C-alpha cells in the first residue's frame, strides 16, 4: 500500500518553475530513488516532502494523512544531507544524542541504548567519542545515517548521500545503506544524479527532468524500456538515431556483429576502439547516413575479430531490444 504520496506538487522560484505538477506514490518499506540531472527539481521535491520548503500548490500525504501543512518535526522522518551537516563541535555520540534529547525519554539509559543501537547498525561503535573532522568521509556519512535512524523515524530521506565520497567508498556504502534499509524495512527516498547508484539500490526509480517526471518504474523497466528518449539517453549508454522518421534507441551491448553481410544489416566503419578490461567499446560511423553508433562486445570477441581503425562491421539491431519513439525529442 502507498505510504507516501505527493499530489500535483508545483513550486516556482520567481519566474522559474522548479516542480510542475509532481504526483508520486511510494509504498511502505520501499527504497525509491529520485534520479535526474542537476537542476531538475529533485532536491526541491525531497525538501517539500520533508517540510523544509512549502509547495505553491499540491499536497503531501504521509501514511494516509494530509501532511501538506505539517512542520518538519511532526512528519517523523530522518534525513541525511549531501554535506552530512554533522555538528562539528559535538562527538559522534553527542550528535546522535542531541536529537534524541528532544524526545521526552523517561530515562537516560534508554536514550543512550537507543544511540548505541544506531551506532552498532552502522558499525561505528568504536568511533562514538570522535569528532566529525577526525572521521573519514565514509564514516561521517554513516554517522549522519545513524543520527537519522536513531529517532526510529517512519521514513528516511537521503539527499545525494554518497556524492561527496570517492568511487570505492561509494560502492561499498551503497550496499551498506541498502542492507540497513532492508533490515529495518524502512521506507526510503533517495535523491541522486548517479544512475548507477539508482539502478543498484532502488526498488523503483522516479526519473525527473525539467521540473517533471519522465518515468517511474523498476530499475529493470527503466533500463530496458525507457519511456522517453531522455530516459534512454540518461540511463546508461544508448545509441539514439533516426530511422524513417522515428527515433530509434538501442543499448551498445545489444547490437549484434554479423560475420557475413545480409539483407537488413547496417554497415559501419570503426573509428575508435576503447579497451575497457572485460569489454571493448567500439565507436563507429554508419556508411549510408553517417550516424554514430557505439557497441560493447566482450574483449575476447574483439580480439578474435582482429579489428582496427577503419574495419568494416555488419551490424544487426534485434527487434526485441530496439526502442522507438514517434517524435525525436531534444535528447
Amino acid at each position, binding site marked *: 500500500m502507498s505510504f507516501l504520496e505527493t499530489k500535483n506538487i508545483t513550486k516556482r522560484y520567481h519566474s522559474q518553475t522548479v516542480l510542475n505538477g509532481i504526483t508520486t506514490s511510494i509504498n511502505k518499506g520501499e527504497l525509491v530513488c529520485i534520479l535526474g540531472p542537476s537542476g531538475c527539481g529533485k532536491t526541491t521535491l525531497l*525538501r517539500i516532502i*520533508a*517540510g*523544509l*520548503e*512549502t*509547495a*505553491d*500548490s499540491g499536497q503531501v500525504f504521509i501514511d494516509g494523512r494530509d501532511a*501538506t*501543512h505539517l*512542520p*518538519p*518535526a*511532526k*512528519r517523523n*522522518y*530522518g*534525513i541525511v*544531507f549531501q*554535506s552530512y*551537516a554533522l*555538528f*562539528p*563541535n*559535538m562527538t559522534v555520540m553527542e550528535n546522535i544524542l*542531541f*536529537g534524541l534529547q*528532544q*524526545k521526552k525519554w523517561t530515562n537516560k539509559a534508554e536514550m543512550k541504548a537507543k544511540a548505541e543501537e544506531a551506532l552498532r547498525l552502522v558499525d561505528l561503535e568504536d568511533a562514538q*567519542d*570522535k*569528532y566529525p*573532522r*577526525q572521521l573519514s568521509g565514509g564514516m561521517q556519512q554513516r554517522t549522519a545515517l545513524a*543520527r537519522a535512524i536513531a*529517532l526510529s523515524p517512519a521514513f528516511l530521506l537521503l539527499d545525494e548521500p554518497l556524492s561527496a565520497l570517492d568511487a570505492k567508498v561509494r560502492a561499498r556504502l551503497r550496499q551498506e545503506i541498502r542492507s540497513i534499509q532492508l533490515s529495518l524495512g524502512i521506507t526510503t527516498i533517495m535523491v541522486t544524479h548517479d544512475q548507477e547508484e539508482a539502478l543498484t539500490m532502488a526498488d523503483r526509480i522516479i526519473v525527473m527532468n525539467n521540473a517533471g517526471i519522465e518515468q517511474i518504474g523498476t530499475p529493470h523497466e527503466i533500463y530496458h524500456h525507457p519511456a522517453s528518449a531522455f530516459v534512454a539517453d540518461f540511463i546508461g549508454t544508448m545509441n539514439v538515431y533516426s530511422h524513417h522518421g522515428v527515433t530509434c534507441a538501442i543499448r551498445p551491448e545489444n547490437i549484434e556483429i554479423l560475420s557475413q553481410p545480409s539483407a537488413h544489416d547496417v554497415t559501419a566503419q570503426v573509428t575508435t576502439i576503447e579497451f575497457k578490461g572485460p569489454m571493448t567499446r567500439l565507436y563507429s560511423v554508419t556508411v549510408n547516413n553517417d550516424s554514430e553508433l557505439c557497441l560493447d562486445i566482450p574483449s575476447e570477441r574483439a580480439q578474435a575479430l582482429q579489428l582496427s581503425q577503419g574495419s568494416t562491421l555488419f551490424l544487426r539491431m534485434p527487434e526485441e531490444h530496439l526502442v522507438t519513439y514517434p517524435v525525436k525529442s531534444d535528447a
Partner: protein
Amino acid sequence: MREKLRRYLSGLRWSQLFALVATITTFTIVLIFPLYSLFSKAFVDKGGEFVGLGNYITYFQSPALSISVMNTIDISLWSTLFSVVFGFIYAYALTRTRIKAKAFFRYTALIPIFIPTIVHALGLVYLFGKQGIFTRAGLFPFELYGRLGIIISEVIFTFPQAFLMFFVALEFADGRLYEAADAMGIPGWKKLTHVTLPDIKFTVINVFFVCFTLAFTDFGAPKVIGGSFNVLATDIYKQVAGQFNFNMGAVVGTLLLIPALASFTVDRLVNSKNASTINAKATTLIVKPNWKRDSFFFIFCSLITGFFLTLVTALFIGGLSENYPYNLSFTWKNFLFSRSSGGMDAYVNSLEMAGLTALCGTIFVFIYAYLMEKISGFENLRRFGKLLSILPLALPGMVIGISFIFFFNNPSNPLNFIYGTMIILVVSNILHYFSVPYLTASGCLKKLDKEFESVSDSMNIPRWKTFLRVSAPLSLPAILEIFMYFFVNAMVTVSAVVFLYSAKIKIASIAITHMEEAGNFGQAAAMSLLILMMNVLIRLLYEVGIKAIKKHTSAKERHET
C-alpha cells in the same frame, strides 16, 4: 485565494517572525526615528515653522560658518592623501617584502586605534606644541595649532584603517600572475602598476572614502589642536552645546552626512562589481629576496612605528612626571584625578559603558545576523533588515549624538527616561559601531552549513537551541572579535557621547578634553594611559582567547587518533 492564504500562514514560523519583527523594530526605533528628528529640525526655524532651505541659506551666508566647510574639505583631503600613501606602503611592506619584525610592525601600527583621537592631538602637543620637546630643541619651527596639527592628527587617526584595509587586500595574491609577468620579463615597477594596483583598485577607492569620512567627521583632534581653525565637527558642537542653536546644529549634522553617504553609495556600487579575483587555483605568491627593496621598506616602517612609539612615550613621560616639560621627576600624582573633570569615576564609567556596549552589542549583533542569515522565508523583511544593518556605517558619531538628543530628549517620547543615563550611551555606541561587527557575524554564519538548521528542524530541535549549542560555539572566534571591537571603540569614542553624557555620568575620553582645557596636561596623559592600557589588555586577552580556541580544536583533532 483562501487556499493560498492558508498555505502562506501554515508555512510561517511564528516564533521566527516574532523575533525578526522585534529585532528590526528595535533597530528602526534607535536608527530611523532619531534620523527623522534630525532632518525635520534642519528644515524648521527656532519656532518650529517650516522654512525649507532657509537654514542652509543662512548657514552659507554667514562667512564664519561656511568657511568651516572649506576647512573641513581641505584637512580631510590632505590627511586622506597621506594616509592612503602611507597605509599602502606599510601594508605592502608587511605583505610583499621580506623585511624582519613583521609582527612587531603589524601590532604597532594599531596603537592609534587604542586611544581617543583627542589623545593623538595631545601627544602632538607634547612633542611639537609651544612647550613641546622638539619645539624647545628648535627642531619644529612650524605652528602646530590649526591646520597642520589637525592634518597630522587625522593621518595618525586614519592610518591604521588604511593600513588594515590594504593589508587584507594585499595579503592574498595570485602568484601565477607574477610568475607570468616574470616569464615575460616585466620590470618590477610595471608589475606594480599593471598587476598589483589594478588588483586592489577597489580597495584604494574604499580606503580613500573611509579615511576621508573619518577625517571629515572627527571631533577630538580639532577640539584639542584646532585653535581658531574651525571645522564642521567643532561647529556643530558649538552650535548645540554652546549656543543651543539646535536647528543650525541639525544643518551641520546633515552636512556631515554627505561624504559618508557618498562613500556608502560608492562602496555598495564597488562591492557589487568587485568579484573576487582569487580562485581555488591561485598559488601563493613567493616573495624573492631583494635587500635594496627590503631596506627601503624596513626604514619606512621603522619611521612610522618610531613616530607612534614616540607619541606613546610622550604620554608616559607626561603622565608620570611632576610638571611636564619643566620638571620631569617621577610621580604617580597625576593619577589622583581632580574631581572637577570626573576623576576616577569617569574611568570606571567608561569601563562600565565599554563593557555593557561589548556585552549587549555582541549579543544583539549576533542574534540580528542569525535572523538575517539562518531563517528561510520573510524575504522582504530580511532584505529591509540587511539594509538597516549597513546604514550605521554612513553615520558619523556626531550625527548619531545630535539626532539622539532631538529624539530622546523630547518629553513626549515614552523613551525619554533613558536620556542622560548609561543606557543611552550604550545604545548610541552599539548603533555607532554596529555595521562592522554585523558584517563579521554574518560572514561567519554564512560559512556554517545551512543544513544544520534543516537537520534540527527534522529532529524537532528548536532554533534557539541550535543557535546556542551549534552556531554560537562554532562562531566563538568571531564573537570574541566583535566583543573586542565594541569594547575598544566604546573606550575611545568621543563624537557620539559628547552630546549624550550627563553631569552625573562623565566618561574618560571626555574627561581628557576637560583636563586638557583646564591645562591639566599631566592628568590628561595619565587618563590616556589608563585607556591605552585597558585596550591593550583587552586585545591581549582576545589574542590569548583565540590561541586557546585554536589549541582546543586541534586537541580535539589529536584526541584518540
